């Protein structure tokens, strides 16, 4: 059974069609990258998969580990093993990073029918994982993301991923706002989590991130659907030639399809 199976997904915001028959299958152990120009629907896809209000599928199916994902509340998706690393992580005043991590982990564990983690084991585990992400004690004690730099926020996202150990991690433009050192740290954190049991979906505008997180598959997304799929070499090709050809091809392709339907 596939980890994630998206079939003919259609979605829009305010009457504007954003996803137009999107298909994608991810098996456990695979890292997929979706690349596309601005406005191609990448962020809509990630919000829709995570269950954000206002992002509803009009048509199509999404199965996650065999279950109907679109029927699930955001917290149920997290419990089932879905994780979205936000492009713009939210600042939550008055809630320390540590409290947040412990609340989230225990909520997920309860939801999975597991026991809550005792405070001592939790502290040990978080310390170890934070060190790997370059998140120091001070960042754990501070209110969640408040006053964090762009790089700190992204490292903190990957720390949350490491703590929650999801089945599928979606990284939405995780490279945005990062300098090269921060990018390396974040990528190391993500790579350390690659496993046969876990899938990843890396969403990015630029090829740069894929130098650090090597995908197994690369997909080009334009106008809300995948127009081409290939291996890692596709990312390099895009870096050289840009999205221009696909924007044209997609318009032409749609025309042909419409023509064919009329014929």
């Amino acid at each position, binding site marked *: 059974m596939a980890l994630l199976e998206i079939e003919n997904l259609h979605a829009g915001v305010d009457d504007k069609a954003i996803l137009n028959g999107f298909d994608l299958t991810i098996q456990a152990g695979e890292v997929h990258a979706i690349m596309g120009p601005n406005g191609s629907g990448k962020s809509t896809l990630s919000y829709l998969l995570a269950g*954000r*209000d206002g992002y509803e599928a009009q048509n199509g199916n999404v199965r996650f580990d065999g279950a109907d994902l679109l029927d699930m509340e955001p*917290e149920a998706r*997290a419990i089932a093993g879905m994780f979205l690393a936000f492009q713009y992580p*939210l600042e939550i005043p008055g*809630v320390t990073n540590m409290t*947040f991590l412990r609340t*989230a*982990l225990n*909520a997920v564990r309860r939801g999975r029918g597991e026991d809550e983690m005792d405070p001592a084991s939790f502290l040990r585990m978080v310390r170890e994982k934070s060190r790997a992400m370059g998140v120091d004690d001070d960042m754990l004690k501070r209110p969640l993301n408040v006053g964090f730099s762009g790089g700190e926020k992204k490292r903190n996202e990957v720390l949350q991923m490491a703590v929650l150990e999801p089945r599928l991690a979606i990284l939405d433009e995780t490279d945005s706002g990062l300098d090269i050192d921060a990018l390396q740290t974040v990528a190391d954190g993500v790579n350390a989590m690659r496993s046969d049991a876990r899938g990843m979906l890396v969403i990015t505008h630029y090829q740069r991130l894929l130098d650090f997180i090597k995908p197994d598959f690369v997909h080009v997304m334009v106008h809300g659907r995948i127009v081409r799929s290939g291996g890692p070499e596709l990312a390099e090709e895009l870096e050289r030639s840009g999205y221009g050809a696909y924007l044209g091809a997609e318009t032409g392709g749609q025309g042909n399809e419409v023509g064919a339907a009329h014929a």
Partner: protein
Amino acid sequence: MKWGPRMLDATAHFETIHERLPGGAEVLQARRSALARAEQTGLPTRRNEGWHYTDLARLLKQNDAVPVRANAFDANALAPLQMVFENGLLIDEPAGDDCVTIESLAHALASGARNHVGDASDNDMAAFNLALAQDGAVITIDGTPNQAVELLTRGDENAHLRHTIKVKRGTVTLIENLQANGYTNAVLDVEVDPGARALLVRIQSAGHHVGLTRVSLNGDGAFCAVTFVTGGNLARHETHIRLLGEGARADVHGAILGHGTMHADMTSQLNHEIAKTDSLTTLHAVLDDAAQGVFQGKVVVARDAQHVDAQQQSRAMMLSERAHMSAKPELEIYADDVACAHGAALGELDADALFFLRSRGIDEAAARHMLISGFLAAPLAHIENEDLRACVAAHVSAHVPGCENDGEGVNAELADA
């Protein structure tokens, strides 16, 4: 309810109780003139500038209002020196300790001390209070006590309480635990000598409370009040502070956990009468149902009071379309080299933040609780005593508006924080 109509007839009430009122002939004379003044002005209405957002006469006539209550706040874990006032009379007088002298107002007046009834010339409600106050606390602090001092008010009857606190040396933590169900008019006069500090934590969980706190900071002393209104149909907490010595520091922080038909008013006036004095006034209001919040903050900086830093901030989180917030920050500055600012913000629960927390597995109720508690963490942080802060955090966490309050996991987390 008994408090309504009887409150409005102060003279009749005075005639009923005046033989039981403490104090000699001189005090009685002061009471009679205060009563005459009170009767002449009557209870404040919207026409009184300081009461524009809180129509006291109208609010006190609402006899049929559904009581808005929270659980009683319990600070017993701190083992404070506790004075319990029931229906306006002290029922339990603690011994005090090496650096705390505690006496009831009744005893203090019986021994002839006129000054404990204070002054009522500048405030309508203080006039009612002076005329009718039967009891109160008279406390002198000389050194830092090991325990906090708690003034606990309870009962169902009308009550007029008048407390006087003098802090000569050291730091005292005061707890005003307001649990009375009826109408209470309380005046708290605080005098802080140079180098001393008075830290007041006030919790109102029930009733109709009209309180006036008057503070004089005589030198480089400090006063910090943190007030939480978690229950009660009417809360009016008015604070007047005079900063009279260089290096004086005043903090007035409030939090309103508004629900039902609660009307909670935080009014303050800070007079920076001398240079190099600082103040910070904040309000965090969370308003659900038909709750009403009021922030009236005034800062006055005298002509030669240079290098004053005075900040005011009112923030409200609106959880219901029927809730209402009024904010009137005010600066009156006569000096020219000061750093003063004020601001008022009003918003809703952040839907993006809610989604962020839910996407990490935290259910909607717990996520709401976490965000609203987080908003209320700022006033909690101003409570210096850690044990007391944990007590108040637990009480606040159990009464976060707009939540089922069954997220006990989150409650424990907040109490740790």
